[in-house]
């Protein structure tokens, strides 16, 4: 860094200068806004160094296994600062999502020490944790000698933080007192509505406030816009079809995936009357207003269609709608956002997906790896990613409180901030934590596909599903 810039930044850090005037002064020196904030961030991390020995693991190197994702991009863009701060070397492998988790499973199940930390979802830790492939991060979070005092763990949104902690008992409540922190939240996704405002207007439709209205609105949007289908939701034969809008609405209606008895036994809960009613409506919605090739839709297709103007609305991850409103998408700038509660009363309770970071038990140097973990999930990087890169949705309340971040969202993403604020309190994982999560949820998706294709009536399909789920639970000693 050149001396002049350094002085300016340090002045800012000491509170002698407003952010705005700093940026102005820097731009006078020929520094663009983006690199200016990298500078600021770098200075900020340097400032941290005063209170904590960041150089403790100087010269060590770690390797990461990463999914292809905007969060990854944001982290990599800022990675040089970490290297500078700690003197550590970081390398990584990036895989696209289709094969990413298979790669994680392959690496961990073989006990590979190649990767020290990796990206994961909370659901995955229900496998990795009991399998003994990952560590309980509480051990590091609570160790003041290993964790930077400014890390501020309690700054993490509570619902998100708790959703990443589980005591390992099948059916055990997430975030309970005896829970182990299997992973560190990084960024998360609520499931709400993103819609094409002009299509809504053209169809003279209004925003739905409950499930029946959602179905009506979807049909109306489809009828009122040529060559457009009403609502985009996921449909591929994967657990990922269940967890976004589908489960959010399901849970909001008070339905559960599994029952947990007092003695800790699990049993299927998908064949209640309420569940059957919900499934019937959901199936009808897809049949009437869903994508023609719904059954192959992963989040890529759901997002792409909205961005390309092929669909009028999605009930899926909020960040998907966020991304579709920018870049070279045909519909960029025309999208808007709204929270959604299927029951029609009370606040939305979206199920969430949490991109997290976890340390591999097979890592040869967990303490050094933890340095990366706390940096990547720390408030500084969070703010950098959220304001300068597409690191939505941040998991720290301090970032959500940042006016710059809120303004930026409010300006270009109408309704986004409100949507988040309204649903954040109820946002958490609505699944029952248990090791058969992927088997059972994938089978659920497959059953849904059959129902949409009219291969099996909803009632019958759910009864079959419940039978099968119970059988598998029993087989695994859980039921």
């Amino acid at each position, binding site marked *: 860094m050149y001396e002049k810039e350094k002085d300016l930044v340090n002045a800012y850090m000491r509170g002698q200068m407003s952010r705005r005037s700093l940026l102005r002064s820097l731009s006078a020196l020929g520094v663009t806004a983006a690199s200016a904030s990298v500078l600021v961030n770098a200075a900020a991390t340097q400032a941290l160094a005063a209170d904590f020995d960041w150089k403790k693991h100087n010269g060590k190197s770690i390797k990461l296994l990463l999914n*292809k*994702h*905007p969060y990854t*991009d944001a982290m990599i863009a800022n990675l040089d600062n970490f290297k500078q701060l700690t003197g550590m070397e970081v390398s990584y*492998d*990036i*895989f*696209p*999502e*289709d*094969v990413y988790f*298979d*790669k994680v499973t*392959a690496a961990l*199940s*073989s*006990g*590979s020490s*190649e990767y020290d930390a990796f990206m994961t979802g909370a659901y995955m830790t229900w496998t990795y944790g009991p399998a003994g492939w990952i560590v309980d991060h509480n051990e590091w979070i609570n160790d003041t000698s290993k964790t930077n005092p400014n890390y501020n763990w309690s700054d993490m949104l509570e619902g998100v933080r708790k959703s990443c902690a589980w005591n390992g008992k099948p059916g055990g409540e997430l975030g309970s007192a005896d829970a182990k922190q299997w992973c560190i939240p990084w960024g998360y996704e609520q499931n709400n509505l993103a819609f094409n405002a002009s299509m809504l207007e053209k169809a003279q439709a209004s925003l739905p406030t409950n499930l029946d209205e959602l179905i009506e609105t979807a049909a109306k949007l489809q009828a009122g816009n040529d060559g457009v289908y009403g609502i985009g939701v996921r449909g591929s034969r994967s657990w990922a079809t269940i967890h976004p809008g589908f489960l959010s609405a399901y849970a909001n209606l008070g339905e559960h995936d599994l029952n947990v008895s007092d003695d800790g036994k699990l049993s299927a809960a998908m064949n209640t009357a309420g569940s059957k009613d919900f499934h019937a409506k959901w199936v009808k919605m897809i049949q009437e207003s869903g994508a023609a090739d719904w059954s192959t839709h*992963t989040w*890529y297709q759901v*997002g*792409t269609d909205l*961005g*390309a103007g092929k669909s009028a609305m999605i009930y899926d991850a909020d960040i998907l709608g966020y*991304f*579709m409103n920018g*870049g*070279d*998408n045909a519909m960029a700038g025309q999208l808007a956002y709204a929270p959604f509660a299927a029951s029609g009363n009370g606040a939305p309770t979206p199920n969430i997906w949490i991109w997290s970071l976890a340390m591999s038990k097979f890592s040869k140097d967990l303490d050094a790896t933890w340095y990366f973990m706390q940096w990547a999930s720390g408030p500084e990087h969070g703010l950098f990613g959220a304001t300068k890169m597409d690191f939505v949705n941040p998991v720290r309340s301090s970032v959500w409180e940042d006016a710059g971040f809120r303004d930026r969202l409010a300006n270009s993403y109408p309704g986004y901030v409100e949507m988040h604020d309204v649903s954040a309190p109820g946002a958490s994982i609505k699944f029952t934590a248990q090791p058969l999560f992927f088997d059972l949820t994938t089978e659920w998706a497959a059953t849904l596909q059959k129902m949409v294709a009219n291969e099996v009536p909803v009632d019958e399909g759910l009864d079959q599903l419940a039978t099968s789920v119970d059988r598998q639970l029993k087989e695994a000693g859980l039921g």
Partner: protein
Amino acid sequence: MHHYSPLERVLRGVALTAIVIFFMFPIFWIVLMSLQTNETILRSPPSMVFEPTFSNYAAIIAGRLDSNVASMGIEFMNNLMNSIILSVGSVTVALILGVPAAYAFARHKFRGSEDIAFTLLSFRFAPPLLVLLPLTMYFQQIGLADTYLGLIWVYQLICLPLILWIVRGYFEDIPQDIEHAYRIAGHSWFATFRKIALPLAGPGIAAAALLAFIFAWNNFIFALVLASADKQPVTVGALAFVTASGIQYGQIAAAVVLSITPTLALALYAQRYLVEGLSLGAVKG
């Protein structure tokens, strides 16, 4: 002398045209797609009139890929290189191991030779995952994970039986008298193998090597399960590419075209050996 009635001639012509269209059209269409931007690809109805662009190829070769979700460096050329390393490496190893063994099986009916040959052959027919899944665990322990060597070893499952099988048949077709005559002239056993048997079986070895190369190149499942990002071949890379690139359909098409071009070119260049190898391999031995 064949005689076809006019009606028959017309019917044959129609049938052949339909067949050629069915088998050639997908390749043709993908090539067309690879030369278009998303804008022209997404036109409805599809049209063959467009201004060709090589930007998709340029993006892939440059390794930079922008989509609406993210931009990422795509290691596609690296994947291509991996395919070359894996295929050439596997075929070379399979030739070194397989040709002498094929000769042994062809020339010496030693005890258990049929059983051993049968065992080697049956590897060709075992479900690949049966071996691959446990291997993911072992590879780590023996340090073969994430190495070309490990993959090339596993690729022997496809290459070795093929080479053994075709080359053995070829050796068996060489009259033994020629070799005997050479040996009686005072040449060593090894010289006979090298100077007489090998050259005579040359076309068979070429055919087998060619086929083995193509099978290795086209393999998907081995690399999907065992290869890490920097060792994976194009077949796996191209699939990953689909999800990674979002809706850059032209680039997907260009990636597919780049991935299949080497085998197609090889097939056209050496079709005589290929046809021979295929029909020998399956029927004659």
